[in-house]
């Protein structure tokens, strides 16, 4: 009978791992290019509504974000929707100074292109949103973007 296996010749060959770093670096660069840095820690829940007529926000440096929604820590802060600017809770009166500081941080030539992105939870009532919009009008920040995800609209199935 033929012998297929030889005694003692059964050493595992070493796998060459020299290209492993290259593969990992490739993954690293992929993620560095496709993702953006997280800027704020969210204190409010913003599960966005969905819409079909959406446009992409370009030039993130020209976009200021206003988050509105019920606080995540509802035991501490209650369930009433709150406004978040940067990394803290705020009130409607803070919006004017928020927009002003965002304007100061932008080159003068690009100020007309500044957009305010409203990230509002879908269950929020319009009252607080209307107040924010009125405040934005007062400080002439007229370009707004109602942040939504892509998808079917509520009520139309």
């Amino acid at each position: 009978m033929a012998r297929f296996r030889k005694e003692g010749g059964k050493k595992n060959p070493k796998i060459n791992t020299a290209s492993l770093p290259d593969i990992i670096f490739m993954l690293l660069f992929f993620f560095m290019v496709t993702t953006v840095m997280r800027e704020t820690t969210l204190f409010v829940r913003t599960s966005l509504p969905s819409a079909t007529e959406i446009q992409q926000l370009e030039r993130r440096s020209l976009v200021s974000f206003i988050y509105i929604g019920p606080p995540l820590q509802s035991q501490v802060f209650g369930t009433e929707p709150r406004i978040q600017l940067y990394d803290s809770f705020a009130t409607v009166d803070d919006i004017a100074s928020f927009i002003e500081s965002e304007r100061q941080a932008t080159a003068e030539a690009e100020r007309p292109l500044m957009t305010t992105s409203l990230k509002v939870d879908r269950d929020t009532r319009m009252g607080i949103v209307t107040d924010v919009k009125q405040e934005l009008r007062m400080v002439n920040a007229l370009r707004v973007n109602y942040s939504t995800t892509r998808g079917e609209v509520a009520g139309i199935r």
Partner: protein
Amino acid sequence: MARMTPEINAGSMADIAFLLLIFFLVTTTMDVDTGINRMLPPPIDPNAPEPPPVRERNVFVVLVDAQDRLMVEGEPGNITTLRERAKEFLLNPDDNPNMPVKETTEIEHIGEFDVSRGIISLQNDRGTSYEMYIAVQNELAAAVREIRDEVSRQYFGRRFSELRDEELVNAVRRAVPMAISEAEPRDIGRR
């Protein structure tokens, strides 16, 4: 004989790369920001003279109440039919005297075009849910976009979003303006 350079051990290189990779995975987000772009009306100057009244037939009134119910042109409406009704209003295909006036305008690249003078007026209550508000905004925007697509197809053979030439885009924009106005807010529902 020259000394051989000792080989550098690159075994830990993968670990370093992994560390960096995980750092970036944790600190970054992948979401692309998308949404509905809108221009808010400029603040009202209290000293400015009253604007001339808009003729009744040119205004398409959409009201949303605190219970998320729709009122379209004075009768109960439905979100599923809102898009069609808004389109019909803006186009006014039968020249209905209750629907907007059309003004023949000379537009570059298109030529003479009947531009509708219709305005969609959207008013919501403070108690309206944000989801419903977005749904209504979306349907009205979709109505305008569909009309723009039709005009764009008819004159340039392409959908509006596929037009690359800035001049053609502006021509279609002039022919079909995005005439959605938000009325000054009111508080009726009190929630």
